[in-house]
């Protein structure tokens, strides 16, 4: 005689999946925002050397200089290792103005902590690297990080 009649027992209502697209879209937007497509197309071969005593790099205060042999599509630039900054090949003399321009673009409190990340192909000869370093000394940007792949000790 109860008023609260139970319906057919064991018949669970289907879980509504109406909010599933919302959840998935939320995730989708997160990954879309977090995805960084490679910012500068490399025109050189860039296989980094490996090291085990590595430290993490703080990206907010870093400019990258790439160096290596021009890759297959850019054969017209020859076989000699070249320096790439952002999207273009630069000469050794242009390193200093490029780096100073990159430093000036940073927010003010990070400028003294400016680091230059050197992403240099492992088959490059070290003479080019010391040329770059000499230019960086002239630009007075003295903190450098030799970017390397971390390897297990």
């Amino acid at each position, binding site marked *: 005689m109860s008023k609260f009649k139970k319906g057919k027992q064991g018949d669970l209502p289907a879980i509504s*999946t109406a909010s*599933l*697209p919302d959840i*998935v*879209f939320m*995730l*989708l937007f997160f*990954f*879309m925002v*977090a*995805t*960084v497509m490679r910012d500068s197309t490399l025109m050189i071969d860039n296989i980094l*050397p*490996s*090291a*085990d*005593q*590595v*430290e*993490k*790099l703080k*990206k907010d205060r*870093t400019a990258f200089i790439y160096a290596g042999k021009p890759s297959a599509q850019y054969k017209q630039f020859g076989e000699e290792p070249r320096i790439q900054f952002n999207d273009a090949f630069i000469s050794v003399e242009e390193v200093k103005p490029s780096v100073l321009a990159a430093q000036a673009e940073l927010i003010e409190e990070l400028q003294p902590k400016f*680091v230059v*990340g*050197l*992403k*240099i*192909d*492992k*088959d*490059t*000869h*070290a*003479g080019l*690297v*010391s040329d770059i*370093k*000499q230019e*960086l*000394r*002239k630009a*007075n940007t*003295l*903190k*450098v*990080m*030799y*970017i*390397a*792949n*971390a390897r297990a000790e």
Partner: protein
Amino acid sequence: MAKRAAPEVNAGSMADIAFLLLIFFLVTTTIEKDKGLLRSLPPIDDSEVEPPIIKQKNLFTVLINRNNQLLVEEDQMELKNLRQAAIEFLDNGGGTNAEGQSCDYCKGKRDPSSSDHPDKAIISMKHDRETSYEQYMDVQNELVAAYNHLREREANRLFKRYYPDADNVYKAMLEEKEKNQFSKDTVLNGRIDQIKKMYPMKLSEAEPDKN
């Protein structure tokens, strides 16, 4: 003609489409974190001051030739022995530092013909223009490893009690500093500086000869 209501669009496949996109972005996302060896270059010094004379015994010279061979202290050496040789040199403690203190934490041989004090010990590295960058990085890596080994040992001796679970005390300290970068922990920073001061990294690089 009777006006019909527009049929409702079935949104059931919306989730599938969104999943497809989601999986695409999941796969293409690389939250990459660059790592590397952080070094400081020496500033250009135009002053005409005579550089201080460094005794030969306080200088550990590493030369790399164009064939990527190593010459360490006038002897040819394999890369795998470099780390140990550098540790022995830095940890020798055969004499006193500039303040006249002897190195009471050094565990080296105290050989009077090797370095006096970690304060004074300088590693000098020179390479040829034709040396490969890979070899250059390997040598840098081994030399930094020698310093890290010694710092780790001292951190383990002095501060192990604060980090009983850590395998590498110095590394744990640096990681903690990294974590608290917005709230300065003066005690921790003081400890790290103390370790760094025990084995200051004095790694100089000579410019390769222009020829």
